[in-house]
């Protein structure tokens, strides 16, 4: 049965968004994207050497994969950098979608919520569909929604850490607080079980990159993550049992033979 997730009026079936960075080779990246079944991949912009053609080659490869691109503003530390990068991305990639990163601290690559909200407002007003990389902070999230964001992407843990969901209760509260928004756990996922846990909390999707690109077998891990996202989503929809501290027999006790 179909269970699409919607990003700004665009419905897709795959709830796994995949990054395109850090792979051993472009070929392996392409394999991993295919294996992931991702319909949306994140991309970036970097300086092109005069006369160079790296950008074109990468772009041709990505386009050959028939996926939507979600350009990011990775590495931007100021509102102005992020806004200018977003505009360049819109022109180059021909999409209003932008994964908005305004980095505030370099050890954790934590978002700067102050710059993020400001940049989100400017870009939303300018017609962008903003996918903000944020934290589980509910107040910042409310301001982002107010600024026009219909997608929120809180981190699970620092980018590239693979720690999973560092603040489980905080992420749960965020889901409860924003029943309408499209919520994506972005960053920190290291294992399939992390991705499944995010979906079991009712998150709409998961975005990851390092856990796949840096696995021994990226394509295999991409498939594993895809399966975990689907499984976690299905588990959420199936209405799980309540956990309890004491045991309860699965096999009925009644009717047991007396054999002593």
């Amino acid at each position, binding site marked *: 049965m179909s269970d699409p997730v919607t990003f700004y009026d665009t419905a897709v079936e795959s709830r796994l968004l995949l990054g395109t960075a850090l792979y051993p080779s472009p070929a392996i990246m392409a394999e991993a994207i295919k294996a992931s079944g991702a319909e949306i991949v994140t*991309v970036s912009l970097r*300086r*092109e*050497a005069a006369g160079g*053609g790296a950008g074109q080659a990468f772009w041709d490869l990505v386009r050959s994969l028939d996926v939507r691109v979600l350009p990011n503003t*990775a590495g931007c530390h100021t509102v102005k950098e992020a806004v200018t990068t977003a505009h360049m991305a819109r*022109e180059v*990639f021909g999409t209003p979608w932008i994964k908005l990163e305004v980095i505030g601290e370099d050890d954790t690559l934590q978002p700067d919520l102050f710059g993020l909200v400001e940049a989100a407002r400017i870009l939303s007003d300018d017609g962008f569909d903003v996918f903000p990389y944020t934290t589980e902070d509910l107040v910042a999230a409310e301001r982002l929604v107010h600024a026009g964001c219909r997608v929120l992407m809180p981190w699970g843990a620092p980018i590239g850490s693979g720690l999973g969901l560092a603040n489980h209760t905080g992420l749960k509260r965020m889901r409860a607080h924003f029943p309408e928004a499209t919520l994506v756990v972005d960053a920190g996922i290291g294992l399939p079980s992390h991705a499944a846990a995010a979906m079991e909390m009712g998150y709409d999707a998961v975005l990851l990159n*390092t856990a796949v690109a840096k696995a021994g077998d990226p394509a295999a891990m991409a498939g594993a993550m895809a399966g975990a996202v689907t499984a976690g989503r299905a588990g959420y929809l199936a209405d799980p049992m309540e956990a309890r501290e004491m045991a309860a027999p699965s096999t009925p006790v009644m009717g047991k033979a007396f054999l002593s």
Partner: protein
Amino acid sequence: MKITLNGEATEIIATTLDAAVDELGYTGKIVATAVNGDFVAREARGETMLVEGDRLEVVAPLQGG
């Protein structure tokens, strides 16, 4: 004149941005441009005059997370 292209001092003859983009060998390439930190759309490159010392950024698609 002397400008900075992607952080490196560069000598160009062109005085408009789109001439510069051609002169620098980006013709037909998929790139976006910013001058002194401000985005300059493709269609605006023609009327964008460059002056000594301008900081020109030319970027293209690359992998990202």
